[in-house]
């Protein structure tokens, strides 16, 4: 069930749009902000926006950062694109995998982290880089990663 807050926030977005469907990406973001991911409440969101659930799911699954599966408390986005690759992305990913005991697309057993690859983060002069939640972390190396991870409980 969508909460009253979620519904209210979605309706506020609808007001800015020409038709209800145009608010659907905002709606998915709102629900994801409240729950961490977009569960099968997607049916309810769709009804609210006068779409079919299939239509909305086709939008939700198109975009990289709408999560249709539960994720950990923190999402690590590791840049796997060219400048970071040249600067040692593969070692960074391997180190993260070893430290957290997960591969790309997986969540740690304690639900703390999910690790995902992300296309170029636009911080190529400070490669290799990753984001955790809203924060960008640059010039990565193993010691730095250890330090950074401590900040996310």
């Amino acid at each position: 069930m969508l909460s009253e807050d979620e519904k209210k926030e979605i309706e506020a977005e609808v007001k800015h749009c020409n038709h209800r469907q145009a608010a659907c990406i905002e709606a998915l973001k709102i629900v994801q902000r409240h729950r961490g991911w977009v569960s099968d409440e997607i049916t309810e969101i769709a009804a609210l926006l006068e779409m079919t659930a299939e239509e909305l799911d086709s939008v939700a699954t198109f975009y990289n950062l709408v999560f249709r599966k539960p994720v950990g408390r923190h999402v690590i986005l590791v840049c796997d694109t060219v400048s970071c690759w040249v600067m040692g992305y593969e070692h960074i990913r391997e180190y993260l995998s070893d430290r957290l005991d997960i591969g790309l697309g997986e969540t740690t057993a304690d639900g703390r982290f999910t690790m995902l690859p992300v296309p170029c983060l636009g911080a190529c002069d400070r490669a290799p880089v990753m984001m955790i939640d809203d924060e960008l972390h640059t010039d990565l190396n193993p010691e730095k990663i250890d330090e950074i991870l401590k900040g996310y409980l």
Partner: protein
Amino acid sequence: MERPLIEKIRPDRGPLDIKEYERLGGYQAAKKALYKMTPKEVMDTVKDSNLRGRGGAGFPTAQKWSFVPMGDDAPHPKYLIANADEMEPGTFKDRLLLECNPHQLIEGMIISAYAVQADIAYIFLRSEYRLAAKRVMSAITEAYKSKYLGEHIMGSGYSLEMRLHTSVGRYICGEETALLNALEGKRAVPRAKPPFPQVTGLFGKPTVVNNVETLSNISHIIGKGAEWFKGLSLSTDSGTKIYGVSGRVKRPGLWELPIGTTIGEIIEEHAGGMKDGVGFRAVIPGGASTEFLTKEHFGVKMDYDSVQKAGSRLGTGMMIVLDDRTCPVGMVHNLEKFFAHESCGWCTPCREGLPWTEKILHAIEEGRGEQGDIEKLESLAGLMGMGKTFCALAPGAMEPLQSALKLFRDDFQRHINEKRCHYKGTVPIYGRSEAES
């Protein structure tokens, strides 16, 4: 040397608020345009300035605007959109302009929107630029409070609403018609052109989509004039350009320089040349979708026509350097993996061809390549060339591949013959630290 785009940016790259922006002369150009100029005069000034789009394609900005229907019969609302979906690999220039001088973008958008008589403006921002989102949002709020946005801007007869849309990922959103679909709450697949967005764009209404750097130039052109703008450059193109370099150079970064600065100057002087222990091999001059150039091109001016003549494209003007200890096959594999992942799936050659290309490259890199693979890749590059696919994504993906097959053919062949990557184990690791240790 004048650096209009970055001159107001604080040395610590901290937030520049509206008071400070105004104190440094900000919003004077918007006043000039709205009080003293007709929309046509604004458009003519931008036309005279010869400004070309900084997003990658280099299309003349005023010409793009000129297709928008004008006059009393024109359909409304009309839209102006800032394309801030900076996702071209190796490109980080708009991030600087968005984070450190958002009012320059907003002022440019007000003037541009006025020129095409748009009613609503959007900034389409990629999801991961969280700091930019925060600062742009607060700049929009400030601009509304100071009556630079909203009804009857600064007491003039012109009104403009502005909204920030933060995206949820996918490279294809940077393609202007795919961007329109994303804003309409659809899958971001490209649309057929014609009709062009200037006539039938967002929600079917006339729409102009311009890059952040392009729009950030507008206030300066209106403030100081077309002749001044032309005088900034070292070539036939006008203005300055934000150039950047990433890869194993001593000082990766970005610089605002006269357009037409040479590739060699940017890499050797501004980026400080290669790190100790590695040599220069090649460079992709303008983001991932451009062809490799080599040392013999160091004298080439970084402007649209010169880079084209040298066999590549200026693109975003953001260079990615390949050094002599990094495997070119691995690098091209990484690029094609990106493009295969980001293909929107709308047209068959791109959806099927890019993963196939990636698979072959992966096999070669891992020592599973077979004789004939190089020819297969060449044929795929031909099949996904310009005009063979629905949009420019796959042709862009083929540019670095095609040039790599020519320039590094021996490396591809050796991988296949020896059934291994002969660079493995020679690649230094961990970014900057290795040069310093």
